[in-house]
């Protein structure tokens, strides 16, 4: 495919990135989706809205967060100079809050009183419950029963914040099923409810809107690396479930041709077994409001994904990633559960930073490629969230003996 003058112009006015994206929703929702698009367009152009968004990011979320030079990981890898973008230091512990601040301001502008959201790892659920507490709005979170079990600390946090957590038992009871039930709720409560989608997927305008709110990550990295190293990074690495932390980091750099950009999907038990690598193992299809790469069978039935990380355990990916994949601008690779668990331990022991299992996928890929790169290669890895929520999953994966029988 020929290279484009810009990779940052999408989507088109109908919400398409090439053949991807769009608005594949029930007619009941269409008028509301069009209203969200219109309201977001107006908010985006409104300096007062942008000022309030920036102010909350600074005063409430704690931005900018550091771009931290990971000296000991760099030494261990023995090659590229590795920097961690510390989204884990945000209020609520992940990048998810950036988007939630933006969307709650939009929901308020639209006069909506009730907020619904889906969550996988619970980070988006916690961030949504947090902004609902802050603005005094009713909050209902849909979460797969499997995920409730593996992310219990986040379930308690949501409840403490005043959210109602609704368990979803259909299918594999993970993120895909939670999104189905959130859409069912929305179609049944269109008049007063705003659906606060947590990733760069769903019907237009969500993929573009969530990307815009998350782009603060890449914008900060650009300024920080220029200040610290006097030049742009040579590579960016981020994990991808739906792909919001990755899109937030990548988008501001898409037109900087010298920057190699790598998205890391979850290979679960392995690409020949159960996994969640939609671009590597899927093909284009339509689900949850957009056309994108999906894990599916020949009949178009959606396959169950698997990842040890609840936040990556989804059979689809944001449509802009599908487009960037086909355009060849971003490389998409994958990392297994075992590799992610090893990277989780390595980062924890060497840097004293407990990364989320999701972010551990990005670190695992950095560990693979950094050793072969020169010492002056600047690599930015998005540490999209902290791993406190994952300790029981890790304990289970490593076994009792590993922690000296403490489990």
């Amino acid at each position, binding site marked *: 495919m020929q290279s484009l003058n810009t990779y940052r112009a999408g989507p088109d006015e109908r919400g398409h990135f090439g053949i991807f994206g769009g608005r594949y929703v029930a*007619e009941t929702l269409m008028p509301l989706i069009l209203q969200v698009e219109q309201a977001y367009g107006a908010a985006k152009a409104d300096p007062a809205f942008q000022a309030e968004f920036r102010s909350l990011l600074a005063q409430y979320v704690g931005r900018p967060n550091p771009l931290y030079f990971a000296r000991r990981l760099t030494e261990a890898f023995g090659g590229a100079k590795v920097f961690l973008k510390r989204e884990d230091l945000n209020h609520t512990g992940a990048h998810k809050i950036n988007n939630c601040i933006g969307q709650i301001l939009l929901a308020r502008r639209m006069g909506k009183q009730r907020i619904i959201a889906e969550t996988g790892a619970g980070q988006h659920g916690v961030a949504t419950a947090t902004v609902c507490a802050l603005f005094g709005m009713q909050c209902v979170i849909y979460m797969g029963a499997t995920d409730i079990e593996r992310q219990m600390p986040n379930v308690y946090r949501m409840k403490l914040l005043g959210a109602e957590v609704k368990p979803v038992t259909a299918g594999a009871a993970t993120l895909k099923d939670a999104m*189905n039930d959130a859409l069912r709720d929305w179609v049944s409560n269109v008049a007063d409810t705003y659906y606060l989608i947590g990733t760069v997927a769903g019907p237009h305008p969500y993929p573009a809107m969530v990307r815009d709110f998350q782009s603060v990550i890449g914008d900060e990295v650009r300024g920080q690396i220029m200040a610290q190293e006097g030049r742009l990074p040579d590579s960016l690495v981020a994990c991808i479930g739906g792909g919001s932390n990755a899109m937030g980091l990548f988008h501001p750099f898409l037109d900087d041709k010298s920057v190699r950009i790598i998205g890391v999907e979850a290979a679960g038990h392995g690409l020949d077994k159960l996994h969640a690598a939609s671009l590597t193992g899927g093909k284009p299809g339509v689900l949850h409001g957009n056309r994108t790469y999906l894990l599916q069978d020949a009949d178009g039935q959606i396959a169950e994904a698997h990842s040890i990380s609840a936040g990556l355990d989804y059979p689809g990916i944001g449509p802009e990633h599908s487009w960037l994949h086909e355009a060849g601008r971003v490389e998409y690779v994958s990392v297994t559960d075992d590799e992610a668990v090893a990277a989780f331990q390595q980062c924890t022991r060497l840097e004293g930073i407990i990364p989320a299992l999701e972010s551990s996928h990005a670190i695992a890929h950095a560990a693979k490629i950094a050793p072969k790169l020169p010492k002056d290669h600047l690599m930015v890895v998005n540490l999209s969230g902290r791993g406190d929520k994952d300790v029981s999953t890790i304990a289970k994966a490593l076994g009792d003996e590993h922690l000296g029988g403490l489990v």
Partner: protein
Amino acid sequence: MSRIAKRFEKLKAENRAALVTFITAGDPDRATSQALLDGMPAAGADIIELGMPFTDPMADGPVIELAAGRALKAGGSLRQTLEMVAAFRKTDAETPVILMGYYNPVYAWGPEKFAADAARAGVDGLIIVDLPPEEADELVPHLRAAGIDFIVLTTPTSDDSRLPVVLANASGFVYYVSIAGITGTASAAQSAVDEAVARIRRHTGLPVCVGFGIKTPAQAAEIARIADGAVVGSAIVSVLAANIGKPGAVSAPLALVKDLAEGVRGARK
């Protein structure tokens, strides 16, 4: 003239509305589902909607969601759905059959090839829940070329500015989703339905059928007084679900269809 147009012409002559019945293809297995489908016209169904099973039926309530799950578990697929229609056509050449479902299986089949294959099997219309007019261009021309009606859904949120956009693609009849919600849950107030049907009629001359939340013969009769058809799905599928593995798996749902048909047929007398 299409089977759908012929059927509404006949019903108009009889001064009555259509009973439109829904089951999921392959639920709970191919044989039971085929027997149920084949028995529908004699029980009083005027038009049949056959659900194309899908793993993620986001606009459906638990009753239809579970039906799709049973069908898929028993080997149901889009291919099997078309085979069921072809088999039905050997017993019935007149009753319109409409496939209803989600876009991904159709997209995976290929819209152009699907339109041709569905027409060959004897399908008369298609309802795709998650394909609004904004995205329908890649399918609708192929359906038209194959002689299949694209049945559009209008909802309580389709106002006078939205209706023309939705109806631009419509043929066959218009399906009014009477509640803002999922299948098999709440029922709309009759006055709200009356008003909505009247509003839709100001925008189109197509027949208007009303569905979602119609469970009993009395409710079907109420709808049949003002609309051109009453659609019943979850209520029939519930009776099927309660009789799986029992002697009544086919006869019990058909008995409900018979009662519903009596309700619809008596509505304007």
